[in-house]
């Protein structure tokens, strides 16, 4: 059976970007999009273009910084990296996510479903 290719959960793209940058380090937009798809086991159907407004938003919040550099193929690309406040935000968001996920999991347990 082929896995369902789901959409990115609303509002969580930013979190995915921060996590990926945190885990792998600075990279450019295309590489970032591919990494997110690969890490999700190709289960996420990412419209790669939507990454750019998300990146801009993260930049405006000063959670990521961007500067021009070179890709492996020698192209001039914009390379994004996590900032210090981005790291803090990631820690905060992760804690919150775990808490919410935990609460929801309890409800599923109550109704007899298992995740």
């Amino acid at each position, binding site marked *: 059976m082929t896995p369902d290719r789901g959409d990115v959960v609303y509002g969580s793209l930013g979190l995915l970007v921060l996590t990926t940058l945190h885990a792998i380090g600075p990279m450019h937009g295309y*590489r970032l*999009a591919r990494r997110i798809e690969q890490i999700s086991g190709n289960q996420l159907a990412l419209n*790669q273009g939507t990454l750019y407004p998300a990146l801009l938003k993260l930049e405006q919040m000063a959670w990521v910084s961007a500067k021009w550099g070179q890709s492996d193929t020698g192209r001039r690309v914009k390379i994004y990296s996590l900032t210090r406040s981005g790291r803090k935000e990631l820690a905060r968001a992760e804690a919150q996510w775990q808490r919410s996920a935990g609460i929801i999991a309890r409800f599923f347990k109550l109704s007899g479903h298992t995740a």
Partner: protein
Amino acid sequence: MSRSERELDDEVEAHLAEAVDDHVARGLSPQEARYAALRDFGGVTQVKQVHREMRSCTFMNWLDFKLGGRMLVRYPGLTVVGGLAMAFAILVGIVIFQFAALFLYPSLPLPNGDRIVQLNLHDLVENETEKRALHDFLSWRDSLRTIDNLGAWRDDIRTLIVAEGDARPAYVAEMSSSGFTAVQGQPLIGRVLTPEDEQPAAPAVAVIGYELWRTRFGSDPNVLGRTVQLGADHSTIVGVMREGFAFPVSHEMWVPLKIAGVDQAPRSGPAITIFGTLAEGETFETAQAELTTHGRRAAVEQKPTHERLEPRVVRYADMMAMNGGQDAVFMLLIYSFIGMLVVLMCGNVGLLLFARAASRESDLIVRTALGAGRGRIVAQLFAEALVLGGLAALVGLAGAALVLRNWAMTFLEINLGRLPFWWDLSLSPASIAAAIVLTVLAATVAGVIPALKITRGMSDRLKQTTAGSGGLRFGGVWTVVIVAQVAVTVVFPAIVWFENVQLGRMQDYNPGFPTDQFLAVSVERDAPVDNDGTTDAAAVEQNARMAATLGELRTRIAAQPGVAGVTFVETLPGGESPERRIEMGYDAAEAGRRNPDAAAPIRWATVVETETNYFELVDAPLLAGRGFTAADAEPGANVVIVDQAFVDNVLLGRNPIGQQLRLVRPGNPAGPSDWYSVVGLVGKLDSGVPYRKGPFAGFYLPSTPERFDNVHMLIRVRSGDPMTVAPQVREIAAGVDPSLRLVQIQRANELAAGMLWVIRLWMSITLAMSSVALLLSLAGLYAVMAFTVSRRTREIGVRVALGGSRRRIIAAIFRRPLIQMGIGVLAGIAFIAFMTFMYPSTEGPGAGQAEGLTLRAIAMQAGYAALMFGVCMLACVVPTRRALNIEPTTALRTE
């Protein structure tokens, strides 16, 4: 295309190219790879559009400013009041800034002006500049390597006699010829001074300034070669300088500095100022280093004179600057003052903007619901304030330019005399930069503070979904602002009133004689070239010469057909005669009778030194005793004449004739003066200070003019305008002694004109400030009222619907502004009362008397406070009417 747009294009293109590479590597054809990459990306155009929109949302965007502009039109009252207040704050700020820059950071408007320097000899013990530096000047001129064009000048006001009957003082600089090269001064015609002119045997020559050439020589093109009399000397004019040249300070004529015959011993000779230009490639530091080496050597070689002297090099323009132009603390104080002023004024504008924003609360709540963050809304309100501030800054700058051009220079001239040529008060780029900073500050105070306040807890109000149902309220800050505003509104007119009282006193000032028949002349004499170390014998001889000169001057002027008489006085009527502490002969006896240890009571009187013919000339009626005789002016005669005010205020009605008085002179090692006998009494002859409350007790000491500190001549004419004899007086003075200078020739009834001008200026300034304060108070109160009514529309509607009494509804609305106004008015009155008691006239016969705090003044204040109260109430009328006309059904619908 903007940079960010270009960068986005590049980034998207790079993304697609990377994706194409990947797909090609997986075996797709280039064309298929391109399609796949585009498909994975999603709509390129849409992504760019979203990106663009997000970018424009960063902080502020063009739309915010457009909205700000629209707000100006939609709320014209606020635009005018708030804009005026901000403009006024910026205007005052810029004017103060310009003045501060003039005193603290002056610069020479000359080519290489910042490389022109002044060399000082600083006395480390006395902490002052040793001006007798001729010896050092000569030594520096021969040896200094870091400074070029080294020269010196000395200041002189001399009588310039152009033709018979045309003798007027001219500001002359005796200057080294290098002065012209240092500042690259070019002649309009003829030549400048040369080193040859400085030789002792060289013929006396002079260069004149453009203004002097225009006014005194009628722009005569053949002026070169003309010989003029300059004091006692004659000089041939060899050049006319171009317009605007006034180096070294504000001079209009230049003669060579001849130092050959002058005392050149160390710390001796005339006072001079030394200047030069930094040599090519040298800096202040290298010049100072060289000079310091010199100074150290001199301190060893000429120990007695130079041990505590330190040569210093300073910027030339700092000559007239305060604290050498380096006082950062003072500048900081001034900047803080300007900042405070702007913050205070704009705090009030902030109140108005807060009320406006509050009326748009629902609009702002909707924006929050649509995802605008607090920062966005604050930015929007800041942009609106910035638009208002920008407009205000334009008005403020225009106003400042007008003020600086029309009044500021005149103000400085009246207070300081001739101004150095580098003082320029036209708007500088620095002032425009300052205006921009002030505008941003103003917009921050007026825009951001209210915005922060209104957006606090916005999301909670969003949940309530009922704008106008409370939550948002006027806090303590605004209450303080309004109260302070009302207080200021009360205080300012009181200041205007006090100024007006002073003005009235000056206008009504009556010295007790027909001043319109008198010409007042201030007489000075050129200082001898080298008057240092003058012996007593020389002083006596000088005095005798002066006595002879003034005597002849008097005789010859009195002989003129139109002149009725001449007298010399030490202070002109209305010229602030000195007040002295005196003791009466009977004081000790009376004090002893009350309490043997008691000190004599403190008494004050103005002292006027006059010639013995003074009373006759001014027609002062002698009420008792005798007038002065010629013998009374002799030293040791020790007699005085008192005026009626003296009898009233000091003698308390005693018979003055034969009373003894003396000057107490505390702090004077010689102790009190000799006792003087009162020999006469004159009627009202006011010698007091015109703007203070009079009449002052005064007494007159007979003397002779050569003993006066300042010599003034009063000339009485037989008829007509006294000014008509002025040319004859000048001519006679030049004939008697060319070194005599008639510094000021004025009608005696116009002596206070300058002072009057200054007081009138202050009055206009205070009036303008009062108007702005009043306007802001009214607008502030109106805003609070309007705000309250709109907040309580629903409540009022319900009350009206339920038949609540109108009076109680009005009382409920009025309570808050009434309390604020009441506190404000009381605070203002308390402040005035405090000032009146704190600063009564502390000296003189009226000491301790609270100036102006008469029953009439109190009544006027109370009346004024009532008026203010009424006017403030007017601001509340419109909102109240609006409240009472609310239809209950409408009110209940207001959500």
